[in-house]
């Protein structure tokens, strides 16, 4: 049922809700804690995210992504909205920290684990500045202006690094269904 939870939910099957929370609760909670850094705020966000999941379950397309990624995508949208309202200041960290290899894979969900490994590998192939900016923007949720201020680099450069990095990761993950060389077309 691992990949059919959202289909059941979309069809109005309430019994799939518990399975959904069991499967993705830890994932969503971890994402919320990482981006919001305040557990009260994170709890509110997680409730909102699951409501979004119920509402959007019918849009899940298994040919494009796994359920895990789909849930993470919904969570990310909601968390970014909330985080920007928090007026949070970036914890930039050192480039070395961001470049450091993960010491341990703490993903317990096998599906998440496989995807995380593939994505980590794709991230490793990026240039350091692309990786740093994608980390700050996607993982930590900071705006281009915040990153530009914090790293003291022009806004346009921040955007360029983010675009190139994102497209490169997409290609590495085989998500470029067009067959075009998007990176060349874009940057």
């Amino acid at each position, binding site marked *: 049922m691992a990949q059919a939870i959202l289909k059941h939910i979309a069809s*109005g099957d309430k019994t799939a809700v518990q399975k959904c929370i069991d499967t993705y609760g830890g994932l969503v909670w971890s994402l919320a804690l990482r981006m919001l850094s305040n557990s009260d705020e994170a709890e509110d966000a997680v409730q909102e995210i699951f409501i979004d999941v119920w509402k959007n379950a019918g849009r899940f397309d298994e040919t494009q992504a796994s359920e895990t*990624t789909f849930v993470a995508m919904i969570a990310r949208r909601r968390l970014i909205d909330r985080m920007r309202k928090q007026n949070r200041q970036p914890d930039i960290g050192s480039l070395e920290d961001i470049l450091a290899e993960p010491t341990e894979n703490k993903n317990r969900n096998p599906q998440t684990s496989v995807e995380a490994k593939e994505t980590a590998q794709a991230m490793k192939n990026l240039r350091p500045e692309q990786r740093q900016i994608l980390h700050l923007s996607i993982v930590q949720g900071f705006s281009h202006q915040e990153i530009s201020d914090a790293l003291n680099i022009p806004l346009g450069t921040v955007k360029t690094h983010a675009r190139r990095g994102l497209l490169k990761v997409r290609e590495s993950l085989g998500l470029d269904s067009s067959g075009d060389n998007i990176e060349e077309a874009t940057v």
Partner: protein
Amino acid sequence: MKDVKKERLFELLADQTVFGLSEEEAVELAQLKTQFPDWEKYNLLEITAAMIGLSDLDTSKELPVNLRSRILVDAEKYFDSIGETQNKSNFASDKNVGLATTANAEFEPRRPFWQWLGLAVAAAACIALAINLWLTRSQPQPEVAETPKTVQTPEILATPESQETPEIVVIPEPAKTPETGESNKTPRNQETTKIPETNRNQEIVRSPKNANIPEAKTPEVKTPEIVRIPTPAKTPSPELSAAQKREQLLASAPDIIQTNWVSAKDKKVVLGDVVWSNAQQKGYVRLRDMPTLDPNQETYQLWIVDEAQNKKTPVSGGIFNVGQAGEAVIPINAQLKILKPKSFAISKEKAGGVVVTKPNRIVATAKL
């Protein structure tokens, strides 16, 4: 030409995924999408971003039990609202069908009678209060203690058999007896409570997306319209100055902390102190002979470093300016709840304040 437009399409799609778009960019993207109807097949950028977000995620954290219960309640409400055939009245008793079947033993959506009685009394009090406010709205009201959020919860105003409540009046801060307020306020970390946090449910009901979701536990209750009326003018007889409020806080808060400002290296000497009560989440900055800034150009901004935050992210305590030479007292307006304050800092920023400051903008710090 087509390639240039296609490049721009990808740029905007990437920017939208990573940072979001301005209004102008969103319009531009919408136009480009019409020119490339198959743009979606090139996209998948949001999925890529989601996967990047998962790449080093530690998912070993367990969802808190109370939070899980609240999500189940939300789900019940959601599915009821979309016309599920589930018999809501069996929600608590039918352990084989409801969402909360095996959730956890603590989850118990039904309220005992005495709680309903209490809620009915609270509802009557709120309605009487609303009428009173209406009748006396032009008269000054005494300043009262902060009203707990739970007063806003529709459930509280609903009676068990609840006749259709015509209107719920949300009263942000008016008079409320302290004991009633405390008893209604369910602490977030109250693990043993059998009642799902009404506060959370209320927030979800209040959300426009869920405005029509009926209460899972009160199926007979029609979700009433929530009408927010402005806070009755807090008209304490006479309004205390910030300096007086600071003195009051110093005298009344047993956990008060006080520390002096220390000028940053190479900056003008800053004289004054900061006081803070963590229990009351209130504090004041006192400064003497601080240079006045041109408000169109610059502002001072206060920061609070909270040791309990996961990241070392100072919390903004608000922006301020000082009008003239002499002593200035400024209330601290923390953007987040401060759990374990470690130090305070004042920076000089561009007008309007910033979300990111830099070390060279700090003019003073106060460490605990």
